[in-house]
């Protein structure tokens, strides 16, 4: 969340672990278990109930938080004494402010934020220039209007958003909390915002936690509390927190009035939600506090009747508030390109201004003698007798002034309204994307989310998609499929398709019926074997296998009520979906984990409830790649159960075992993983009393040591995990998400390369690659898994040689690959693993890898660490101009999501970190297809057109002004009134482009989905490029010439006055640019009609209103000129002559050189889609047949 790449890896060996390529830091991470160990000390064993597996980064951080707290830098909280904790009211109250502004600070702060945009500074500078009397081209009001308008619109938008934040803040701040009143010892209701540091609060089940609190007591006698952190990090599973025994015994409240002896020293507020460091002095004893003793604001209390805690961080200092950061800000490709063209326009602007200034100078020079007396110039001022010059200070200054004035007059060459239009259009596009029913995910009830509002159009230009596997391509819902016990494969459950009625293993406890929430299809033979009471060796092993599955985990079973009062469900809560799958599988075969308390678990073994004391638990770590538990069963035997990845497990098996059994198991494992299943090997060993005692003392020593605890514990674990009997192996299916193969096929057709970056091992990655049709049998696989730089280099060189060889066959595959049209004759797939990438990324070999990877159709990276994912994204990003998109769901995808041009988070099973870091979030991988192919295409097309049109529209206007300036002795007079000048881009022509930018569709959704190839137009920058820009500008020049010169020539030598001709020009240009837009609109909705024709009408009304103001020189001009036939003829002539080139070229181009989009439009129009679709489907079908 804090964006520091923090990850939480999961239990199982296969998946998503951060491959720690450097040795792990030696310091331990078990400090928080110290207290629970003492809590459970009556059992004589430390309590391993709460287990979380942490990645390296977190381990490091926790290790660092083990440093002693410096007293000077710590916060001191007196329990139950807010006055003592915070005598000077230095800490904030518990009220929060997500709102950015207050009514007073709104104006300055909002303005400050807005003026961080460079273009606004430009417009402000122009407004200021215009205030100088020598340069006052426009009236004061008129000159400031456009900027004021743009600022106002943005400010209103910001104010509205801020008002909504204020409202939610108010609701949040006024929620009720129950706070201990020190006098009466009772809990009284208080509003959240009044809670202070040091106060003691009570939170009931399912309530939200109002501030960060240190737990003092819970309803559970062992001091356990369960919280749900879904609002904090999005993880829906329950987490356990503990109250210290020292405070548990005497919870503050009626019975125990608070004594001020309790003092907590803790670190200053920080944003690390997984870390907390402090200590507490109670009764003169000092106990240390860790992250397991604190509950954070934003969490909810679950499955615990009540907790009592003391507030340590409140309001803005709570960790959730410190972590709330906005969406990342990225700039779209189109906007970057647009800035390039803006620079070009600035160059044109400067050129125009220079022309005006120079001509002005020449004119003044040529007429320097004449101007003394010329009535219209009057260089000399005789008014008070002296001979001085009136408002004239030499040619040089005049030229300089003329230059500045022309900048003011021609300022709208840089379209100020474009920025605000783009924001509004993106807002509209986001509205439609969010509302799109096709992007709604039923299963997670989540809509599409637009978190970044400024890169909508990038979705239409994506060339590379980097996808995570688990949770993105796959569901991350694990299903137990196969078991191999003693080398015998039991896959019956997988094969039998019909629902096995006996699958539900129901436990009747009195009248209550308990059953697991999910059941797994069982293999009938295996069920029979288990029911035979373990008479055979095979049966015994099978029972031990499932017993191991049921107890070798960190699952917390929760009993959930259902609508039927007699029936209760057991819900397995755990952090790893694999463990859940295994626990449900064990339950289905009759080994139901019912209860987990500190120190023991209760398992219903085929109908008998049995208590197993959990004596020790060795957590998963990425060195060992396995976990183990030591349990003492009802028969007082002490067993070690281990489960782990095959390669780590086969290294620690008993030497004198049946080799054929091992080989059979290995064969089964190979079979499972080639089916795409995730495999785990389970083993066990019975510990003798002596062994156990040795282990126990080592374990306790390690557990209580202060330094290097983690390393010691790992050593203890490795020491005991040896000489195992292999019980068997399990195969868990990682189900593909719906529609993934189809989506990948669509993207392939659309010219998008899909790369899969996964933490999985190679075999699993390849099998998933096949099952989602990413890989096909026809592909040549280039596999790179080396562990030295030298071998990597050789492999890469071989690969280069290989594609060169293919290059001989097909003319130019490398070029083709680069342009996204890879040849079909040879398709190659690159499969590379994380270790090889260590030797390749950031070295000289990167270039080679880039060449090979881009020449391949498919790239699969397995066993990659989060930073390597980002490294691969930047491999492409830094070397090509192609747009990249990263999609993932887990914390390990965060860096990749942030690196890519567009980051998409899947709001799925894993936490919300990916969503928090993403630009867009959605529920399913397959939504990528409508998102890119439909919305992306539309957004890109609309935005590209809008930008070009805005440039064109303003350029036409500026050129008209420029032509007129040539006939005013280069003095920057405008025939068009200043009000019309400023209203031109913000009122007269603004609305239609926004409406078209939001609503216009070049192609229907159906067509775009049917022909993914149409997406390539965006990748090729077809809708916005320098050529189009140049053509548009040429068109703009022509149209301005037509608009200016037709009335000019018609009215030359006539009595027409400035204002009348100005009115003709403004009306002509507004109608012309709107007609221009109208010829380019693809779809006319009634809204489009209203906007386009309404805008012309509005312009006329505005011009009429302006001409009704008697103080302006143009009073009544519009009525006079509209009464003449010449006016109407000019208007018609301007529009027809202006549109002629655009229309002819458009008609010619669409007919002679139709783009794919044009043809698809025609198909759309003439309903040839259906016929064509049939054909395509036939083709596809025959392809499949082949």
């Amino acid at each position, binding site marked *: 969340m804090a964006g520091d790449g923090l990850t939480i890896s999961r239990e199982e060996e296969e998946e998503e672990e951060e491959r720690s390529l450097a040795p792990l830091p030696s310091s331990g991470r078990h400090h928080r278990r110290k207290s629970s160990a003492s809590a459970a000390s009556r059992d004589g064993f430390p309590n391993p109930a709460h287990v979380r597996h942490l990645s390296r980064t977190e381990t490091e951080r926790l290790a660092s938080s083990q440093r002693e707290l410096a007293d000077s830098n710590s916060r001191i909280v007196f329990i139950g004494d807010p006055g003592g904790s915070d005598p000077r009211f230095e800490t904030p109250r518990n009220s929060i402010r997500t709102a950015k502004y207050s009514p007073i600070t709104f104006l300055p702060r909002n303005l400050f934020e807005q003026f961080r945009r460079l273009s606004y500074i430009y417009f402000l500078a122009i407004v200021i220039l215009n205030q100088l009397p020598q340069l006052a081209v426009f009236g004061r009001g008129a000159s400031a209007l456009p900027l004021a308008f743009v600022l106002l619109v943005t400010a209103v938008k910001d104010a509205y958003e801020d008002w909504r934040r204020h409202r939610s803040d108010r609701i949040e701040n006024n929620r009720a909390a129950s706070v201990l009143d020190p006098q009466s010892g009772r809990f009284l209701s208080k509003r959240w915002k009044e809670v202070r540091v040091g106060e003691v609060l009570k939170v009931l089940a399912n309530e939200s936690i109002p501030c960060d609190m240190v737990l003092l007591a819970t309803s559970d006698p062992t001091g356990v509390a369960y919280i749900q952190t879904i609002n904090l990090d999005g993880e829906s599973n329950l987490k356990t927190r503990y109250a210290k025994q020292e405070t548990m015994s005497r919870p503050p409240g009626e019975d125990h009035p608070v004594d001020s002896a309790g003092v907590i020293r803790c670190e200053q507020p920080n944003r690390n939600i997984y870390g907390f460091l402090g200590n507490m002095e109670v009764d003169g004893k000092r106990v240390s506090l860790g992250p397991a003793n604190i509950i954070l604001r934003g969490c909810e209390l679950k499955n615990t009747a009540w907790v009592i805690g003391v507030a340590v961080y409140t309001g803005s200092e709570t960790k959730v508030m410190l972590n709330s950061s906005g969406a990342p800000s990225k700039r779209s490709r189109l906007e970057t390109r647009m800035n390039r063209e803006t620079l070009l326009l600035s160059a044109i602007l400067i050129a125009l201004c220079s022309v005006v200034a120079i001509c002005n100078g020449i004119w003044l020079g040529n*007429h320097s003698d*004449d101007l*003394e*007396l*010329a*009535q*219209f*110039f*009057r260089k000399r001022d*005789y008014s008070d007798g002296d001979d001085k010059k*009136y*408002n004239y200070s030499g040619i040089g200054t005049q030229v300089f002034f003329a230059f500045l004035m022309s900048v003011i007059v021609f300022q709208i060459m840089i379209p100020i309204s474009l920025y605000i239009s783009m924001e509004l259009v993106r807002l509209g596009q986001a509205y439609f994307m969010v509302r*799109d*029913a096709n992007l*709604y995910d039923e299963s997670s*009830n*989540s809509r599409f989310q637009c978190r970044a509002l400024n890169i909508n159009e990038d979705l239409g230009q994506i060339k590379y998609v980097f996808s995570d596997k688990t949770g993105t391509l796959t569901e991350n819902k694990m299903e137990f499929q196969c078991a191999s016990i003693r080398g015998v494969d039991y896959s019956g459950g997988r094969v039998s398709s019909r*629902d096995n009625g006996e699958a539900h293993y129901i436990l009747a406890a009195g009248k209550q019926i308990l*059953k697991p929430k*999910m*059941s797994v299809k069982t293999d009938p033979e295996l069920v029979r074997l288990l029911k035979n009471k373990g008479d055979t060796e095979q049966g015994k092993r099978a029972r031990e296998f499932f017993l191991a599955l049921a107890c070798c985990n960190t699952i917390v079973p929760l009993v959930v009520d*259902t*609508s*039927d009062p007699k029936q209760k469900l057991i819900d397995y809560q755990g952090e790893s979906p694999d463990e859940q799958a295994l626990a449900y599988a064990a339950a289905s075969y009759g080994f139901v984990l019912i209860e987990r308390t500190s120190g023991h678990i209760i398992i219903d073994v085929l109908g008998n409830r049995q208590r197993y004391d959990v004596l020790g638990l060795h957590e998963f770590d990425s060195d060992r790649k396995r976990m183990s538990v030591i349990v003492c069963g009802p028969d007082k035997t002490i067993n070690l159960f281990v489960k782990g990845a095959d390669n780590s497990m086969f290294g620690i098996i008993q030497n004198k075992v049946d080799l054929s059994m091992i080989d059979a198991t290995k064969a089964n494992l190979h079979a499972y993983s080639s089916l795409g299943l995730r495999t785990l090997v389970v083993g066990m060993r019975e510990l003798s009393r002596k062994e156990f005692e040795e282990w126990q003392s080592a374990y306790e020593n390690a557990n209580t040591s202060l330094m290097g605890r983690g390393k010691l514990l790992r050593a203890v674990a490795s020491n005991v995990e040896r000489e195992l009997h292999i019980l068997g192996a399990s195969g868990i299916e990682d189900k593909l998400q719906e529609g993934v193969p189809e989506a990948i096929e669509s993207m392939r057709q659309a010219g998008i390369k899909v790369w899969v970056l996964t933490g999985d091992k190679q075999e699993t990655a390849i099998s998933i690659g096949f099952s989602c049709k990413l890989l096909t049998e026809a592909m040549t696989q280039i596999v790179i898994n080396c562990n030295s730089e030298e071998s990597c280099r050789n492999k890469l060189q071989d690969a280069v040689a290989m594609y060169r060889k293919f290059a001989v066959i097909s003319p130019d595959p490398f070029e083709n690959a680069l342009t996204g*049209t890879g*040849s079909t004759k040879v398709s190659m797939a690159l499969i590379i693993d994380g270790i090889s990438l260590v030797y390749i990324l950031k070295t000289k070999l990167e270039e080679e890898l880039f060449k090979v990877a881009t020449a391949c159709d498919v790239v699969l990276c397995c066993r990659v660490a989060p930073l390597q994912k980002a490294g691969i994204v930047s491999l492409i990003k830094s070397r090509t101009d192609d747009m990249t998109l990263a999609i993932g769901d887990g914390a390990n995808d965060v860096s990749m999501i942030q690196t890519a041009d567009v980051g998409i988070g899947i709001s799925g099973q894993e936490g919300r970190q990916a969503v928090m870091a993403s630009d867009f979030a959605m529920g399913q991988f397959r939504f990528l297809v409508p998102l890119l192919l439909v919305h992306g295409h539309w957004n890109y097309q609309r935005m590209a057109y809008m930008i070009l049109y805005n440039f064109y529209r303003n350029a036409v206007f500026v050129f008209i002004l420029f032509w007129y300036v040539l006939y005013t*002795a280069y003095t*920057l*007079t405008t*025939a068009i009134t200043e009000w019309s000048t400023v209203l031109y881009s913000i009122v007269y022509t603004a609305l239609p482009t926004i409406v078209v930018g939001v609503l216009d*569709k070049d192609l229907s959704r159906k067509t775009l989905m049917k022909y993914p*190839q149409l997406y390539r137009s965006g990748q090729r920058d077809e809708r916005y490029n320098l050529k189009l820009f140049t053509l548009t500008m040429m068109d703009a020049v022509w149209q301005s010439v037509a608009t200016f010169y*037709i009335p000019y020539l*018609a*009215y030359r*030598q*006539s*009595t*027409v006055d400035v204002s*009348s001709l*100005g009115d003709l020009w403004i009306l002509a240009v507004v109608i012309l640019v709107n007609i221009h837009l109208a010829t380019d609109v*693809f*779809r006319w909705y009634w809204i489009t009609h209203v906007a386009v024709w309404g805008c012309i009408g509005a312009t006329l009304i505005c011009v009429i209103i302006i001409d009704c103001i*008697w103080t302006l*020189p143009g*009073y*009544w001009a519009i009525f006079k000129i509209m009464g003449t036939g*010449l006016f109407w*003829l*000019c208007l018609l*002539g301007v529009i027809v*002559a202006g549109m002629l080139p655009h229309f002819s070229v458009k008609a010619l181009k669409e*007919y*002679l050189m*139709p783009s*794919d989009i044009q*043809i*698809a439009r025609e198909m759309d*129009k*003439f309903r040839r889609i259906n016929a064509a679709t049939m054909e395509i489907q036939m083709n596809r079908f025959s392809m499949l047949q082949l």
Partner: protein
Amino acid sequence: MNVPTADPALEADAAVERKKKSKKPKYSRFTQQELPACKPLLTPTIVISTFALIGILFIPIGLASLSASENVVEIVYRYDTECIPQQSQDDKVAFIQSSATDKTCRTTLTVPKNMKAPVHIYYELYNFYQNHRRYVKNRNDKQLRSKEYELETTNCAPEATTVDGSPIVPCGLIAWSLFNDTYSFAIQNKAIEVNKKNIAWQSDKDEKFGSDVYPKNFQQGGLIGGAKLNESIPLSEQEDLIVWMRTAALPQFRKLYGRIETDLVANEQISVTIQNNYNTYSFEGEKKLVLSTTSWIGGKNDFLGVAYLTVGSLCLFLALAFIVLYLLKPRTLGDPSYLSWNRNPDRH
């Protein structure tokens, strides 16, 4: 939720739950972007008929405006150089600035064709930048409109106040430079009456120029710009001033001087007496006297007619060109075989 054998009761619960607060976007044709729409396409028929229609429309309009322009009879007489006596040709400015010289100038004009009344009399100035930035703003509309604002002389410098500080009404360069040549006409020594009423816009007389505002301190400075005004006539009646103050759009412009309310017969000789007072010599300007009838397209101007004919015939030509194109290179619209990936499938 692909649970293989999920509990039905649970599913039902979940369904109820989902229904309660489903975030599923409500279907509407608007939000799904499926509003009914017209999808115009430039089909050959539309292209050809557009061009043909424009052609058919424009050519008659062009012809009509050409003939209207033809029917306008116009007499243009440039007099600025001719009205300077031979001896002053070298220093025209001195001649025009001198108050002693006789600036009367006589000439005869021949009426080329019959001119129906009203015949408009214009003066035409060339190279006079009434749209010059220094000039065009040099006025004060408040002062012109009402007596209350007599003291309002903003923007009027250097013709704002007299030396002693009292305001000039009307102030500013535009009023100061009021054109002051006068013309009188006679046919066979019989004077023709020139109607100088209603030469200005009624709206200007009603609203822009006040009936209680009388000229004051006008044209009293060291430099005389042009005409003097009768101080007993309110500005709203000073139609020459009002016409002058509707500043022209272009540096070559005509302004209405008056009307001759009688028909002029072809080949009649009109003797014109010009008082050549206005100084256009200091900036290489030109002065012309114009007598012209009007038509529905205004004065004599062939441009629009020619332009319409050109555009119209161009459009007809384009229509033909497109017909030829469509015949020579027929293409079925919306034929999928034209799609790039179908055209060269190996690059797919």
